[in-house]
Every structure is written in C-alpha cells, then in structure tokens.
C-alpha cells in the first residue's frame, strides 16, 4: 500500500494531533466544570477522527479525494433532501408529541433531529454517488 506524505496530509494529521493534545490538556487542567470536560472530550474525539481520516486519505491518490463538480452536485442534492428529511422529522416529532402527549421538549429533539440529518445526508451522498446520474 502506497502512503502519501504530502503537505496537505501531514498538516491535516498535525492539526488532529494538536487537537488531541489540547483536549488532553483541557482534561488534565480542568477545574471540575462539566462544560470544560465535555469540550475536552469532544476535542480528543475530533482529533482522533481527523487522524483516522488523514491516515485513510493518505492511502488514496489525490485525484480520488478532490472536490470536483460531480461531488459538489452530489453534496448539494443530498443536502437538499436531507433538509427535507429534517423538516419532516421535526413535524412528525411535534405531532407525535402533541397527539400522545410525550412531554418531549424542543431541547430533547435537537440532538435527535441533528442525528437524523447527519445520517440521512451520509446515506443520500452514498446513494447518489453509486447511482451516478445526477
């Protein structure tokens, strides 16, 4: 397996490592604040993800990863339908809350809707990438 070691990859992994270090420092020097602990945890998680993405990307040629017009079209189309899915899921959650009196607050819905949006966008991107006729 050929691994690329160009500037883009190295700087991306470097930023990931710095994020992990920052997150670790925040956790090490934290003063007991829950928000700061969460921020530190998120930083470490983001840093680890960046390193993994960087390592996976380094095994692929540059032309496999560039943002060309086809990818832009796929992202736009997936984003458009993911937006509709988010709106529909909000409507469904509101109506279900109203009909069955679930007692769900808007704050509780936020993460569910965000999760639905992210998952549907990823699935739609994969689908349009395979289908190709955009």
């Amino acid at each position, binding site marked *: 397996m050929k691994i690329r070691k160009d500037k883009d990859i190295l700087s991306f992994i470097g930023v990931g490592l710095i994020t992990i270090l920052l997150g670790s420092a925040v956790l090490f020097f934290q003063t007991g604040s829950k928000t700061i602990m969460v921020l530190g945890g998120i930083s470490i998680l983001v840093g680890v993800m960046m390193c993994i993405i960087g390592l996976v990307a380094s095994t692929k*040629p*540059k*032309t*496999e*990863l*560039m943002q*060309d*017009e*086809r*990818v832009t079209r796929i992202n736009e189309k997936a984003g458009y339908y993911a937006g509709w899915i988010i709106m529909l899921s909000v409507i469904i959650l509101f109506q279900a809350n109203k009909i069955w009196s679930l007692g769900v607050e808007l704050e509780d819905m936020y993460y569910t809707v965000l999760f639905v949006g992210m998952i549907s966008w990823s699935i739609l991107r994969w689908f349009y990438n395979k289908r*190709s*006729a*955009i």
Partner: protein
Amino acid sequence: MKTRIKEFRARYNLTQEKLASKVGVRRETIVFLEKGKYNPSLKLAHGIAKVLKTTIDELFIFGKD
C-alpha cells in the same frame, strides 16, 4: 448520452488518472463520463475536449435520452 472519451484517450495514450488530473476532476468522474452516466458541465466538457484535442460535438453523442 454516449461519449468517445475512451477512444480519444487511447489515441493519446492517456490513462483515466492522467486525464482526470489534467482536467481537475476525480478519476471516478471520468469513469462515469465514459459510461455515459454523468452529464458534465459545459466547462468540464470543454476542458476534456481541449485535452483530447477535439471538439465537444466529436466527444459527446447526444441521443434522445
């Protein structure tokens, strides 16, 4: 839509990878173009035609579909 990209590419001894990097797209995009499964923008079609020293009319055959 059908294309003659593969034929022209072979004429100039260009790989999909090389053509992709010359026109600034992913190799995957060239694969879909050759299969006739992707309608390129006018800019990309012009870019490919220029690299393959031909015209858009020669390169892309537009049918009823």
